[in-house]
């Protein structure tokens, strides 16, 4: 019985297996990116960026219809453009990154919605906004996996300056020039992973697989490395349970995945070992030293 619920969907239906593979690949890339977004206090930057990639995807859609490759390329171009422009503006003028990004992403979002609504139908708009993880064809799946691989390799390369810049940016500036490039590359990785999630979860929820797992991880560890592992793990678990839930109840798959992640997050807020609500309310007797 339990086996039917938990495993049968995947053994019987290919599209479910593809969806699971996609969500695992997504989790591997988005987990660590989300942790760094959170630690650099950029969680909302991820959200803004998700909107910023819309016009690029819309232009891709305008040129070649509902072709995921074209939409992804467009999204990447738009995302990189917004990320680089806002990064350069904030680094060269002293305007804070969030303010700089907010201006760029609003313009970008308005442009994107305009393009989609001028050309497409409401169904198209829905697809762009919410994605469809149950419709992963081979090229799309391959692209999701490639993007996740690129993310992990590049992150490994910029890991050290990224960590040092997060904790002590002034120090990094006095010993190395790697800070600014690492930051810009990191912004690029955010875009890559958003476009990745975009296929599966749509523009609105793509950022969910970054932010929620990172939030969960924060409540269970005090060190970056375990945090990243926990984030990836909880993203995969959310993806799996979300897919099963969506299969059994007909809740759309994207929202189901994010809802499951939200529930795990809620549990972590309540019971998390590091700063959770209940451990704070009932900390136990104080120690001797």
């Amino acid at each position: 019985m339990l086996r039917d619920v938990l495993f049968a969907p995947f053994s019987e239906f290919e599209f479910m297996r593809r969806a699971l593979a996609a969500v695992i690949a997504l989790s591997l890339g988005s987990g660590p990116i989300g942790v760094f977004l959170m630690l650099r206090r950029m969680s909302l930057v991820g959200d803004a960026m998700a909107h910023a990639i819309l016009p690029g995807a819309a232009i891709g859609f305008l040129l070649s219809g509902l072709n995921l490759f074209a939409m992804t390329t467009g999204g990447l171009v738009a995302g990189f453009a917004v990320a680089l422009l806002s990064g350069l503006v904030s680094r060269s003028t002293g305007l804070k990154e969030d303010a700089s990004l907010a201006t760029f992403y609003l313009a970008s979002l308005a442009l994107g919605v305009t393009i989609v609504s001028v050309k497409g139908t409401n169904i198209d708009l829905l697809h762009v906004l919410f994605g469809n993880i149950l419709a992963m064809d081979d090229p799309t799946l391959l692209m999701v996996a490639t993007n996740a691989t690129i993310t992990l390799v590049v992150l490994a390369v910029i890991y050290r300056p990224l960590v040092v810049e997060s904790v002590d940016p002034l120090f990094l500036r006095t010993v190395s020039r790697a800070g600014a490039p690492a930051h810009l590359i990191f912004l690029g990785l955010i875009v890559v992973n958003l476009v990745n999630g975009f296929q599966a979860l749509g523009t609105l929820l793509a950022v969910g697989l970054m932010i929620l797992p990172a939030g969960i991880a924060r409540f269970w560890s005090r060190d970056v490395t375990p945090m990243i592992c926990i984030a990836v793990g909880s993203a995969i678990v959310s993806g799996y349970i979300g897919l099963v839930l969506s299969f059994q109840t007909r809740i759309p798959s994207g929202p189901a995945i994010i809802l499951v992640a939200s529930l795990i997050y809620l549990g972590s807020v309540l019971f998390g070992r590091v700063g959770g609500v209940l451990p704070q309310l009932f900390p136990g007797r104080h120690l001797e030293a």
Partner: protein
Amino acid sequence: MAQLQFRDVTLGYDRHPAVHHLSGEVAEGALLAVIGPNGAGKSTLFRGIVGLLKPLAGSIAAAGVKPREIAYLPQIADIDRSFPISVFDFVSTGLWRSTGMFGGIGAAARAKIAQAIAAVGLTGFEGRGIGTLSGGQMQRMLFARVLLQDARVIVLDEPFNAMDSKTSADLLRLIEHWHGERRTVLAALHDMEMVRAHFPQTLLLAREAVAWGATADVLTTDNLAQARRMCEAFDDAAAPCVPAPASRAA
């Protein structure tokens, strides 16, 4: 031999000078206290030395070291104390010059890190998150990182602010140890007794150099009074500074 040479250097913000026409040199192995009222330009001078601030005019030359090879302890450290990193890992970033972005940290490096942590009296704190440290422990940790940077020139911006006497004394011993190794050490300080007792050379700064030389000669009542008279606020309507030829010669 001059380790640092200031050639009529002016440093500042938005064209307003915070350090004005400073000339002089710091000998290799010198232990120099930089003193002066708040807003005198001490931090600005240090930012210029380590290359964080480009001079508005003139230049700073460092013999045999690049700006990135100068160890710098800022007054207001821009450290995110909520970042989940351990004391050990944090201190290990002091090895950046030898490890760079990709170099591994092997057994020898680990031993060096442990030694640096022990030298500042933080043994036992290696695994603690930096967010759990007190202000004084934090400063000890930053000194451990400077120690690990193994720099020929060390610039410390008010390193003893809000430190208790035990911590100050411990860290002062470290500075004297560096002096003994013929490293060039510059420290911005406010404690005149400490300057008199431990720093052979002093630069009294009040936007311009009021006095510079042996500490006993610099710390005179006249000099200190003159430094206090300096005006802190920038004059928004100030005209561009065109130095008279005579003052350039000095």
